[in-house]
């Protein structure tokens, strides 16, 4: 087990490094203009520009830059109690991640700080919505499978079809209008006043789609299990349909669902592009698009690093979770397609 975890951790780190390196090098293909703020571009003389580029190490060959990037990734500083950096040896050590500074979007702010701040908001909304849709989706999916082809099943199926069919933009619009006009809910997210209340609509919008997803998969896995041979033996034992459902089917159907749980939880940090743009939530969702459109290269790098790390750790945790709940799965070093 320990050996497996170590091996997988190594593989994961390697994948993350690969992704980050690719993105980093892609960024270096961009014209150097983007390393200045818009103001600087106008004001700076050629010499000043050159000076700044040299200071930032941007005149080195790309691979050297990549090496420097990794060398400086972990920053160890001495800080005093007030958090100021000191050099006289009086402070205590502080280890932090150095992803550079945002050049344009959040001028001069460390990328880590920007991400940390936005991440919190996205996770807040994301986790609440995940909890809601998981509970609702699984319960409804179980009901659907239990009364397969009955009224509940048909209504549930109709719901999943409609949610998947109608463009999300339209659904969100309807929810926004309905929420605002009938329940007087704020149409936009607000970080200052009525924050909780202004989160309601984004959370509902996020949950609508994922609930349908959980319903669909829960139902499908349950029905798959119901067709298996061991269900026949369980019935032959004399168990009633309800007993078979709760003692045998439910847990087995949950196993494939559980694999994606860590992934889904971790990816809430990324927020939802559409929902957050729609309700002007200052979260992670639109941040990457914005950063790219403003050519804020360090920020882009930082965000890609975040997504890749979360994605890979999510898959990793999912696999470990699977081995804990499914005794058949033996831990092997081989990564496989999910």
């Amino acid at each position, binding site marked *: 087990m320990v050996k497996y975890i170590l091996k997988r951790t190594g593989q994961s780190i390697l*994948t993350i490094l*690969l*992704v980050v390196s690719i993105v980093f090098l*892609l960024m270096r293909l*961009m014209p150097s203009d983007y390393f200045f703020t818009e103001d600087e571009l106008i004001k700076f003389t050629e010499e000043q520009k050159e000076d700044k580029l040299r200071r930032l190490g941007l005149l080195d060959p790309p691979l050297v830059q990549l090496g420097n990037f990794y060398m400086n990734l972990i920053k160890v500083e001495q800080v005093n109690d007030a958090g100021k950096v000191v050099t006289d040896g009086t402070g205590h050590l502080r280890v932090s991640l150095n992803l550079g500074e945002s050049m344009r979007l959040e001028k001069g702010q460390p990328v880590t700080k920007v991400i940390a701040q936005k991440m919190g908001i996205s996770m807040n909304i994301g986790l609440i919505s995940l909890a809601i849709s998981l509970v609702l989706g699984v319960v409804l999916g179980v009901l659907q499978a239990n009364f397969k082809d009955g009224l509940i099943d048909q209504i549930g199926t109709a719901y999943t*079809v*409609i949610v*998947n*069919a*109608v*463009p*999300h*933009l*339209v659904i969100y*619009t309807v929810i926004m*209008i309905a929420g605002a006009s009938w329940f007087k809910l704020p149409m936009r997210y607000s970080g200052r006043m009525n924050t909780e209340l202004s989160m309601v609509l984004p959370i509902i919008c996020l949950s609508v789609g994922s609930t349908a997803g959980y319903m669909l998969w829960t139902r499908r896995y349950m029905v798959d299990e119901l067709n298996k041979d061991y269900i026949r033996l369980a019935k032959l034992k004399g168990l009633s349909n309800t007993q078979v459902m709760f003692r045998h089917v439910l847990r087995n159907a949950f196993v494939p669902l559980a694999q994606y749980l860590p992934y889904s939880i971790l*990816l809430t940090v*990324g927020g939802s*592009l*559409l929902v957050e*743009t729609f309700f002007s939530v200052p979260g992670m969702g*639109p941040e*990457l*698009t914005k950063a*790219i*459109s403003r*050519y804020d290269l360090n920020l882009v790098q930082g965000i*890609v690093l975040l*997504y*890749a790390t979360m*994605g*890979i750790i999510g*898959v990793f945790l999912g696999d470990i979770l699977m081995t804990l709940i499914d005794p058949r799965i033996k831990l092997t070093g081989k*990564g*496989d*397609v*999910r």
Partner: protein
Amino acid sequence: MPNNDRQKTVQEMEAPVVNLTVDEKSIDTNPKKERPMGREYPHARRDMPEKQLFEFAEYHAQDAERTGYSNYSYWKSVWANFIKNKPAVIMTIVFLALFIFTFVASAIGKYDINMKPDPINRAYLPPSAEYWFGTDGIGRDYWAQVWYATRASILLAVLVSLGQIAVGVVIGLIWGYVRKLDRFFTELYNLIDNIPTIIYMTLIALMIGKSLLTMGIAMIAFGWLATARNVRNLVFMYRDREYNLASRCLGTKLSRILFRNIFPYLISVIILRMALAIPGTIAYETTLTYLGLMDITKPSLGMLLSSARAIFPRASYTLLFPAIIVSIITITFYLVGNAFSDACDPRNHV
């Protein structure tokens, strides 16, 4: 051969002995001839005298061989099952009518898609006898816009989906069948899949361009993953079935094994994937347009939807018309896809 002396005893045996070399005369070489499903024995009649009833009957080797004939055809059953699914059939007809109507609508509409804008006099006029679907923000006829957009979006969706499926199937087949490449494709898959596609799309849009062609290709380039994985898993399932081993024993080439032995089993999955990819592409196009990652000069449903959102409370019809059309398209393909995949499952061939 030393067994010759034993041949005699075979002839002498009195128990029923099978004669596996079929009697030439008993073979009917005309396979087209109508054959009754139930057996008929003209040599045994009901009005037979009792004595004759208890006499030995003539033996016909053919009758024994032919007993297990059922008139089952896989694709016929698939079709019959599909036809039974009324909602799917109705929606298919509605969709086809809709698509044909996009051509008719442009012809019968009063205004052209290239109509001159007039934002001052004609912005957001509600539907009327003159402007059947009203006008848009810069005073163009919305009817012409909507139907043009519908046609464009359907075509784009079909092309992109075809591209995704084609790439996915080819990669999936190779990925699944060629053991040595499994690791490579698995890693490639995980690498791409670990990062949300929207990131790639954003990068491409800003680095290469936002044109329809670029984004269409980008959608194909990152949309094949799910199909490829699905096909790969299926190929894994069929790869070591005995009939494929038999083909290898017979020296059949890889391309032929993939095409003749494995591909036919994938058709149902491919059609299902295709049916789901079309609405998926339309939805994706909407999202991309809304996020400003796609530059479209001519209207598409995505464009209409995202521009309608801003003005929705004032001119609800601008959202309503494209939304209804998108919903019809999507529901059609969902129903058709599911009906088809159900129909393809041999367990449902009841």
